[in-house]
């Protein structure tokens, strides 16, 4: 594996049991991701985007084949080590934000740091930095119910980024947002990608997201049909 190669996927197959038969959600996937990528798994509903994202995120395991994330074989990881991988190196952003409803903005962002036993002073600084990135330092005491959808997703981004993970996995992050909020969130993520060299992998079919991607991996019926690097004007 190359030094800056974070994820390697070889001949990955994922089947789900349906009655007595099975449904193949992913079939023969081969992929690699490098440090600092801003990539997207795109395709229609049911194409296997979220399933692939879940396997990369060690929330699910492949039925066949091999998925290596940060040197760890996802199919062979036990529950504890999978949790450690997520805790230390992965950040998640969900379509429905998945903020903890009884926690304040500050507590939501602080949560991943509590899991890695960071000291209180370091935690405070890291949380305030993360909230500064997303422009929510004035809402630290608010509860998720008191925030708009865009603000909730910004909190979710801050929560995913606060521990400065190597990889952020975002599943339809703009699906519940209006155009303006979607662009704001994406610009913010691009900025974090550039500044912190965090690898972002999206699962999306939203054109607003797709136009920001630097790499577009198109999935159809569980197979990769296109994997293209999109060059910016500067690169061209």
């Amino acid at each position, binding site marked *: 594996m190359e030094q800056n190669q974070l994820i390697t996927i070889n001949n990955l197959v994922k089947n789900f049991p349906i009655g007595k038969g099975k449904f193949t959600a992913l079939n023969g996937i081969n992929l690699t991701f490098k440090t600092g990528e801003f990539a997207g798994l795109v395709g229609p509903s049911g194409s296997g985007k979220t399933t692939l994202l879940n396997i990369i995120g060690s*929330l699910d395991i492949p039925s066949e084949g091999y998925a290596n994330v940060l040197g760890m074989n996802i199919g062979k990881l036990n529950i504890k080590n999978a*949790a450690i991988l*997520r805790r230390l190196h992965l950040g*998640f952003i969900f379509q429905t934000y*998945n903020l*903890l409803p009884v926690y304040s903005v500050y507590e939501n962002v602080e949560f991943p740091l509590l899991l890695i036993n960071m000291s209180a002073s370091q935690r405070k600084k890291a949380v305030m930095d993360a909230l500064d990135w997303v422009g929510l330092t004035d809402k630290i005491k608010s509860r998720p119910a008191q925030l708009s959808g865009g603000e909730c997703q910004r909190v979710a981004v801050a929560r995913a980024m606060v521990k400065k993970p190597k990889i952020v996995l975002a599943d339809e992050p703009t699906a519940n947002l209006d155009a303006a909020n979607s662009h704001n969130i994406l610009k913010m993520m691009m900025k974090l990608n550039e500044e912190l060299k965090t690898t972002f992998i999206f699962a999306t079919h939203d054109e607003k997201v797709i136009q920001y991607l630097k790499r577009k991996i198109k999935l159809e019926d569980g197979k990769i049909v296109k994997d293209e690097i999109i060059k910016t004007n500067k690169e061209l």
Partner: protein
Amino acid sequence: MLALKLAYRNLVGAGLRTWLNVFVLSFTYILIIWQFGMIDGWNYQAQVDMKNWEVGNGQYWHQNFDPYDFFSYEESHAQIPELLKKATSEGKATPILISQGTIYPDGRLQSMILRGISPEQKVIAIPSAELNVKSEEIPVIIGQRMANSCKLNQGDITTIRWRDANGTFDAKEVKIVKIFHCNVPSVDAGQMYLSLENHQKMMQIPGQATMFIIDKNSNINSNISGWEYKSHEFLMKEMTEMIKMKKVGGSVLYFILLLLAMLAIFDTQVLSIFRRQKEIGTYIAMGMTRKQVVGLFTVEGAMHAILAVIIGAIYGFPFLLWQMKIGISMPAGTDNLGIPIAEKIFPVYGLGLIISTVMLVLIITTIVSYMPAHKISKMNPTDAIKGKIQ
């Protein structure tokens, strides 16, 4: 530590739902402590009363004496042994002569026990000094229950009949010089007290007694030929067992209360597992192991019990202390149950009772919380994240 911190945040964040459960649990604590405090208070008072009025610090019985066999009374008296004579003169013991008799109040016939007691004694609380009056009739004292059953009042004169040691029946007039009130029914019901000297003369057995009561502050338990020592534990055995039985009966209410409180916790936990699936999925996505999440939910449940201790202490302790101070009046007639019950029972709350109640509720709450939380370990995290009901 992390589970505690997160559980506390979750509980405080859940607001009213938490406080309702906490209140129900705290109410259970207080009620259990109060109920057992009442029984312990009753037990304590009954023991003190029995010690003061009847048992002392043990008794010496004539070897033939059997309190449940009235026919044994004729054969169970003997000369007072030297050791007990000395103890009596020092105020460490008092002799009692017991015989059977019959009373004829208003022409009716009623059997009773005659107890000869020294008017000078201070070993038990019976007001025997009242027997020191000069009267043509034999002065006697009786308890309120005896007075009620015979319809006798202070100053009444009535006839009693007895059979002396030689088997001869005799009868005389007695005067009720005092009616005393006592919480120990066996001291009172069917008993008549007269001076030991009068009783010995009536029975024609001068210098003899049936039993000795040892003063509660003295400790005499030497072997005396012809006399059997009975410790106060032995003498209070029946009463202690009866109260123990009462405690077992009270435990039924205790378990119903506990069951109701546990149902509330169980219900909250089961609902939480369904309602908070998305949250559970998020915890797992952020790196918590399933074991940690199960631990968090279990601690959350157990923390209800801890918060309930704090809330219970705030409103329950003043209530319990107030009850301890003013006591609970027992309904009229409870003293006819045959066991010592005071007019008012003052609850006694021992540290052991409080700690054991807290620990029991805490342990059961934890178990009840763990049971539904265990379901989390079977959850598919990818479905949980989306909040799909599993």
